[in-house]
C-alpha cells in the first residue's frame, strides 16, 4: 500500500479543499433553505434561466428538503465538484510520473504496472468518497437546525450511489493519464468534456445526451421511495471497470 499512501499524501491538500468546498456549500445551502421554503419556491421558478433548474425548483416544492439536499449535495457536490476533484487527481496517476521524470525510478521497482494503477485508483476512490460521506453527515446534523429531518441511512446510501459518478470520471481520467505525458493535458481534456456535458444538460434539446442525467433529481429521488437506481449504478460501475481495464492495458503497453 506504499503507493496508495504516497497518493494520499500528495493529494491531501486537494482532498481537504474538496471537503471544505463541499462542506461550505452544503452548510450555506442548508441554512438558506428556510428562506427558500418560506418564500414559496414556485414563485422563483419563473426567474430561473434553464429548464432543468425549473424542474429542480418544482422538485423542491413537491419533495421538500430531501430534493433540495439531493440537488445541492448529490448533483452539485458529487456531480460537479466531485468530477473536478476526480479530474485533478486522476490526471496525474501516470502522466505526472512521466512529466516529472520519476516514471523510470518507479517502474524499476518490483511492482507490476497494474498494481501501481490499482493502488492509486483505490486511493483516489477513497479520497473521493470520504469527503462526500463526511459532508452528508454534516447535512444530517444541520437539518434539525432548519426544522427538517434527513434520514442518515437513506442519505448515506444515496451518497454512495452519487460517488459512483466522480469515480467513473476518475477512472476515465486515469485512462487518459496513461496515454499522455502531461498531467495538464489529461486534466483539461476531462474537465473540458465535463463542462460540455453540463452545457448539454442545461439545453433542453441536448439534455438527453448529457451524462449528468444519471445523477439528477429524478434518479436520486428514488431513494426516498425506498428504491435503488440499479440501472444507473450498474452503468456507472461498468464505466469505471471498463476504464480501469483500459488503463491497465494501455499502461502495460506503454513504452518508456
Amino acid at each position, binding site marked *: 500500500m*506504499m503507493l496508495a499512501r*504516497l497518493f494520499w499524501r*500528495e493529494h491531501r491538500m486537494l482532498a481537504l479543499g474538496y471537503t471544505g468546498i463541499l462542506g461550505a456549500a452544503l452548510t450555506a445551502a442548508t441554512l438558506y433553505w428556510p428562506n427558500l421554503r418560506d418564500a414559496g419556491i414556485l414563485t422563483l421558478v419563473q426567474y430561473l434561466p434553464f429548464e432543468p433548474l425549473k424542474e429542480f425548483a418544482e422538485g423542491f416544492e413537491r419533495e421538500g428538503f430531501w430534493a433540495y439536499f439531493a440537488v445541492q449535495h448529490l448533483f452539485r457536490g458529487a456531480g460537479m465538484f466531485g468530477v473536478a476533484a476526480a479530474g485533478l487527481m486522476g490526471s496525474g496517476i501516470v502522466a505526472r510520473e512521466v512529466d*516529472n*521524470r*520519476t516514471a*523510470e*525510478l518507479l*517502474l*524499476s*521497482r*518490483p*511492482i*507490476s504496472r497494474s498494481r501501481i494503477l490499482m493502488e492509486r485508483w483505490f486511493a483516489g476512490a477513497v479520497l473521493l468518497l470520504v469527503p462526500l460521506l463526511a459532508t452528508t453527515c454534516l447535512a444530517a446534523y444541520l437539518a434539525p437546525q432548519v426544522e427538517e429531518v434527513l434520514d442518515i441511512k437513506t442519505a448515506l446510501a444515496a451518497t454512495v450511489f452519487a460517488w459512483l459518478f466522480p469515480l467513473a470520471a476518475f477512472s476515465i481520467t486515469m485512462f487518459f493519464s496513461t496515454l499522455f505525458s502531461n498531467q495538464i493535458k489529461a486534466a483539461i481534456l476531462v474537465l473540458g468534456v465535463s463542462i460540455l456535458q453540463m452545457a448539454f444538460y442545461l439545453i433542453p434539446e441536448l439534455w438527453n445526451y448529457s451524462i449528468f442525467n444519471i445523477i439528477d433529481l429524478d434518479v436520486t429521488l428514488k431513494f426516498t421511495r425506498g428504491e435503488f437506481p440499479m440501472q444507473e449504478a450498474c452503468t456507472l460501475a461498468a464505466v469505471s471497470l471498463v476504464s480501469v481495464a483500459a488503463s491497465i492495458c494501455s499502461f502495460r503497453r506503454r*513504452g*518508456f
Partner: protein
Amino acid sequence: MIQSVELRKSYGSNEVLRDVSLTIQKGEVFGFVGSNGSGKTTFLKCLAGIARPDSGSLDICGVNVLKNPLAARKRLGYAPGETSLYESMRVKGFLSFCLSFYKSADFSGALQMVETFGIPLHQRVRALSHGMKRKLLLTQAIASGGEVILLDEPMEGLDPEARRKVEAIIRDCASQGRTVFFSSHDLSSVERVCDRVGFLRNGELMRCGALEEILSEASQFLQLSFQEENREKVFAALKGIPAEVSAVSGDLEDVFASLYGPEGKEGKQ
C-alpha cells in the same frame, strides 16, 4: 548473472540496440561505455524491465526479464540516470519509499550510507544538489539488497572525492559477490573499478573484454611529438623526420578514441 543474447530495440525507425550479446558473471563490475545516444541507457532500461526489447533474450540471475520482469526486478537494484526524484519527500522518506518494495532491503545500511555521503536525512529532496541526488539514487540501488546493481551514469555530477567513495562502494559490492553493471562517460572511473568493459556504438557492441586485455591493446598506441611546421612531413612519412617517437602506456581514453574517432571523443564528456 546477466546474459543478453542478440538484443534488439527500436524506437520507431530508430534502431537503438542492434544484436547486443554479452554475459556478465557474478561478482563482476562491468562498465558500459559509449558516446551520447549510443544505446547505453536503453540497454539498462531493458535490463530493468522498463523498456521491452523487440527481439533477443535477456536473463538476470537465471530469470528471463521479458517473460518475468517482476521476478527479475526483485533481484536488482537500479539507479536511473535521471535525477528528477519525488521532490516533496524528505531524504529518509524517499529511501523508505524506494526500499519498501524490496524484502531484502537494508534500510539501516541506507541511512548509514547517506550519512557517509553527508546528505541530511530530514532535508527535502528538492533542496538537494544534483550530486547529492545522484548519491541518493546510488544509495537506494545498493541498499535494495539486489544481487545485481544497475547504475546509469553514477559518476555524473560528482566531485572527485565523492567519485572515489562511489568507486569504493562499487568495489565493496563486488567483493560481496554482487554484480555491478554501470554505464559511464567517466573513463577514469571505469578504468579504476571495472573488471570488464563494453564499448557500445550506434547500438552495436563494438568491443567487450577484460580491462587488462583492453588496456594492453591501448598500449600499442604511439604518441608523436613534433613541431607544428613538421606536421605535414610527419603524416607523409615517419622515417627521417625530426620527431620524437615514443611508445606510451595507453588508457581507456585512447581505446575510446580509436573506436569512436574524433566525433566520439567530442561526444564523450
